[in-house]
Each structure stands twice: as structure tokens, then as C-alpha cells.
């Protein structure tokens, strides 16, 4: 819960968190090693210096640590787990539905656990999706269209089997399709993170919501174009938001474009934990004001109402969360992180006052 200076409480739903195991022991090959290395690169590049983790802390973490980072030291009230299986890279998978489900049991009410499917599993995978949906009462799935699978380097949502899976999602009541469309990787021509397939899928499956994680960056222009055409396309701000600290001018450009093209009802906050933590992200976002020139040029408005929508109301709508009921059920866990310097003063003078 984030409390404004005037005492207003803002309920925060983090749309994008992971509980992963990127440790050496779980790495299947060099790709697994390089995958977590790449995440660590993002972490070290955009995190404030005082929030930097060591490699050991970053490689994997406990449920207790995650709970503390999100809800106690951070401002999240609920979080949506987005799995990333990567079983070609990691022995037990990188971040699976089963691993995330442990959190849901341990901290009732705090977590929404999403599933995943891979259309390349064809018919057998459809049965597995049925089971997964029943076991975890899935309302959403996270798709990683650039995931390697044997010789395949990715798939598109317009592939015939992908369409069968989306039909099954509709039948199972899985309405929220989160699709990772982020920085360029594979396959070779353009790449599997190209946002173009979202356009066709969103048109064909009007009953589903497509949340494009990372807003298709670096292809913001393509994403904005598609999201404006389709009423059921949303933007997930994971990876976008962390630019707010070290590259505020870029963040300003991106968020103003997103607000101009999609509007405040179509954007979802996500920390991408454990790459970044919700403490500084939310503090920076709440303090952020669009530069006047940008606001004037784009007509974008990022006021308190817009921030409330982005931080929780939009996700609550997509996932049927009754915020008032949740407020009663979940005590506000937030506590300010102990100030290290106060616990261990470097010199007496600094704390004498």
C-alpha cells in the first residue's frame, strides 16, 4: 500500500513478478548461464546503486525474501506471478507455475498465479493446460514467444496450434494473455518478439485481453500503432518503468507516448521482480511529473487518477480483484526499510542530531 502525503491509500497490484532459480546448479547449459547474466545486466544497469544485489543474491531467492521485498519493504499489496519455463536452459525450469504456486499457499491472498502454454506441444499440451487451469484456477497465462524448444527458436500467436490454444483459453475462462514482447532476441528475421502477431490474435480473439509485456520495446512505435487499433490490447510497464531513475527523459518520452496512444486505462504496473524491486520503482513513479513540454506536445496526463489506474485499478479489473474486500483481508504489510546508517553509524556526528 502506498500512502500519499495527504493520507490517501493506493492499492498496488504488481502485474509482473517471478520466483526464479537461475543458480549454477539449475543451469542446463551456457544458455542458462547467459540468460541470468543478461537479467543481471538489466538489474545493474537500471537499479539505484544502493539497491544492487550480489550475483548470489540475484541468482535465486526464498519465498520469504520475495514476500519481504514486495510487500514489506516494497509497496505491493498483491502480485501476479508470470512464469518463464525455459526448460531447454534450466534443469527444473527457470520460473514455473508450480514454483510460483508455493507462494500462493504460503501467503494467502497475496499472489495470483498465472500459467503458461507452448503451442509447439500440440495436442498433448492442450491436455496439460486443462490440468494446469483446474489445479491453479488460472485466469491468465504468460507466453514467451521466443522460447527455444529443440531446434525451434520461437513461435507466433498466429501459428495454427497457437490459435487452438487461445481457443482453449477462451473455453477455460483464461482471459488474460500476457505476451513477452521485449528487447530483440530471436528468431533470425526480425524476431519472435516482433509485436505484429498480437494484431491478428487480438482481432481474432475479442474475448481475450492481450497484455504486451515491456510494451514491445524497443518497437514502441509498432506497439502503439497496434494497441491503438485493438481495444483488447494492454501495455505492461515492466522494463519500461525502471528507466525512470537513471534515464528520466527517455521514460518521460515513452510514458507520454503510451498515455497518448493507449490511455491510462490500458497500462499495468509491473516490477519484473527479482530484476527490480517495488520500493524505489513506486516511490519514483508517485513522485514523477511529466515535463510540461511533453505533456503539452502529447496531451498526456499523468495525474493521481492515472497513477492509481496504472498501479492497481486496471489489473484489478482484468483479474476481478475486489480491492475493498482485499484491503480488509490483507493487512497493509508495508514498513519502511530500516535505515542502515542509523543502525550502524559511520561516525557519531551524523546521528547526533
Amino acid at each position: 500500500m502506498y500512502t500519499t502525503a495527504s493520507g490517501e491509500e493506493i492499492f498496488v497490484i504488481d502485474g509482473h513478478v517471478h520466483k526464479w532459480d537461475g543458480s549454477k546448479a539449475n543451469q542446463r547449459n551456457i544458455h542458462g548461464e547467459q540468460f541470468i547474466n543478461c537479467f543481471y545486466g538489466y538489474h545493474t544497469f537500471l537499479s539505484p546503486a544502493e539497491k544492487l544485489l550480489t550475483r548470489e543474491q540475484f541468482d535465486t531467492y526464498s519465498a520469504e525474501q520475495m514476500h519481504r521485498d514486495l510487500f514489506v519493504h516494497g509497496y505491493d499489496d498483491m502480485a501476479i506471478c508470470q512464469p518463464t519455463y525455459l526448460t531447454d536452459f534450466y534443469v527444473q525450469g527457470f520460473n514455473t507455475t508450480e514454483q510460483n504456486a508455493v507462494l500462493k499457499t504460503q501467503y494467502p491472498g497475496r499472489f495470483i498465479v498465472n500459467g503458461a502454454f507452448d503451442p509447439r506441444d500440440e495436442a498433448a499440451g492442450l491436455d496439460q493446460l486443462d490440468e494446469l487451469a483446474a489445479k491453479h484456477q488460472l485466469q491468465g497465462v504468460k507466453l514467451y514467444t521466443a522460447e527455444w524448444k529443440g531446434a525451434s527458436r520461437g513461435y507466433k500467436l498466429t501459428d495454427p496450434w497457437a490459435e487452438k490454444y487461445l481457443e482453449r483459453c477462451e473455453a477455460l475462462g483464461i482471459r488474460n494473455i500476457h505476451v513477452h514482447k521485449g528487447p530483440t532476441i530471436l528468431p533470425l528475421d526480425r524476431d519472435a518478439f516482433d509485436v505484429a502477431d498480437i494484431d491478428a490474435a487480438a482481432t481474432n480473439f475479442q474475448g481475450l485481453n492481450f497484455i504486451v509485456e515491456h510494451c514491445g520495446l524497443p518497437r514502441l512505435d509498432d506497439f502503439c500503432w497496434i494497441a491503438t487499433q485493438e481495444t483488447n490490447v494492454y501495455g505492461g510497464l515492466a522494463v519500461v518503468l525502471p528507466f525512470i531513475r537513471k534515464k528520466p527523459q527517455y521514460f518521460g518520452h515513452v510514458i507520454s507516448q503510451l498515455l497518448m496512444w493507449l490511455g491510462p486505462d490500458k497500462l499495468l504496473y509491473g516490477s519484473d521482480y527479482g530484476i527490480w524491486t517495488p520500493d524505489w520503482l513506486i516511490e519514483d513513479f508517485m513522485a514523477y511529473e511529466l515535463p510540461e513540454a511533453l505533456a503539452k506536445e502529447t496531451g498526456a496526463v499523468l495525474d493521481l487518477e492515472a497513477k492509481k489506474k496504472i498501479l492497481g485499478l486496471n489489473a484489478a479489473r482484468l483479474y476481478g480483484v475486489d480491492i475493498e474486500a482485499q484491503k480488509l483481508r490483507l493487512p497493509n504489510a508495508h514498513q519502511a526499510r530500516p535505515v542502515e546508517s542509523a543502525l550502524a553509524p559511520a561516525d557519531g556526528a551524523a546521528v547526533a542530531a
Partner: protein
Amino acid sequence: MDTGRLRQERIAQVRACLATVVDPELDEPVTELDFITDITLTAPGQVRIGFRLPTYWCAANFAFLMADDMRLAVSSLAWVEGVRVLLQDHMYADTINAGVARGEGFEAAFGEAAEGGLQALRRTFERKAFQRRQAALLAWLLEAGHTAQALVAMRREALAGLPLAEAGERLRARYLQRRDVAGGGALAFVDTEGGAIAAAALARHLTDTQRVDINAEFNGALCRGLLAARYPPGAGAAVPIRIVRQPAH
């Protein structure tokens, strides 16, 4: 000329050639992005170039484009007989290095995984570079007091002959390098199809182009940050250019 000086001079020539090669998505020279790790003269007429990218996963097609552009640019030097371009720490390093060494196209190197050639991709990014460079120059010229009416009617020779301050001169040079992407034609400023721009529509034209620019800048910041995280400055591997000394030849 002594061989040491000749070698230094040739390495400088290679570096100048590499400075003309850009990352297709960022439209910035590979030398300025700190992608080049070493330039080595391995034998008479033989050049070896080492380069690296911000992540192990950077798109293979972009990596291939850059490697091939480096080979072509350096091959244009009269004294160069052979160029080896070696991409390091990348998931497709071996495939790309072998493909470029054989002078193969992207499709030949990657087989079925490459669904189409690189030409369309190259063209897409040339068009984006044209737009970005044009927008930057136009914004600068408007700021310097040129009117929309004058700019949309300006001919190429007039733009080339315009006395400009240093910053404007640099923007003009960059833009003129890409002007032909939008076709021949006498006008200095045209849309991507080569058509004239109405004076009243110039502001809108600039706004539309801006999203392309934001993309590239966001990307550029990300790439630089990831590269610095991967090869921390001061950790040895991040020295901008390591000129490896070879026996004189």
C-alpha cells in the same frame, strides 16, 4: 616509412572504415558504441577485427549485418587483401564468423532459420535512419530561425551550401549521407517516399518521426547500459580499442 608507423597508420585507416559501420537499429557507429575490441594486422594485407555486443542474445541478423558491413568497409582499402571479423561471446558467434568469412549471405549461413534475406531489414533500418537524421536536422534548422516555408522548398544544393554552426553542420552531413534513401529528387527535405512536404504539415511530420527517434534513443541507452554491465569499464576487457601488436611485416 618505418613499419611501426605504417602499421599504426593502417590501423587508423581500418578504424576510420569501421566508423562508417552503424548498428542498424541504433544508427550509431560501432566504434562509438564501443563494440570493437581489437584491430590486428595478422599478416601483410590481412586484418582481423574483434567485436562484441551488449548481450549474448543480441539479434543474430543485426549481428550478421554489422559483421558483414565491417568486412565490406575494410575491404575497400587498397592494401587490404583479407578481412576476418570475429564476433565474441555471442550465441551464434561461430555461425556468424564462419558465414561472414566465406562471404556468404545470411540465409546461406543460417539455412532454414533465416526466413528471408537481410535486404528488407536493411532497407527498413535505412528508412528509420533517414527519418531520425532528417528530424534532428529540421528541428535544429527551425530552432536556428529557418522558416517551414523555406525548408520545405529548399533544394539539395542550397542545403549543402548553407553556412551552419558546427552542430548544424554535423547534423547536415549525417542527413545528407542518408538523403538518397528517399530517392533522387532535387528537394532537400522529402518524406520517406520522396514526396514534397507541405509547409503547414511540417510540425506534424516532425511529431510522427519522433516516435522512431524515441525508439532508437531508448535502445541506445539500453545497449550502452547492458554493454557496460557485461564488460565493466576498468575490468580489462572494456578498453575501447586494443591494438594488438604483431611482428612487423
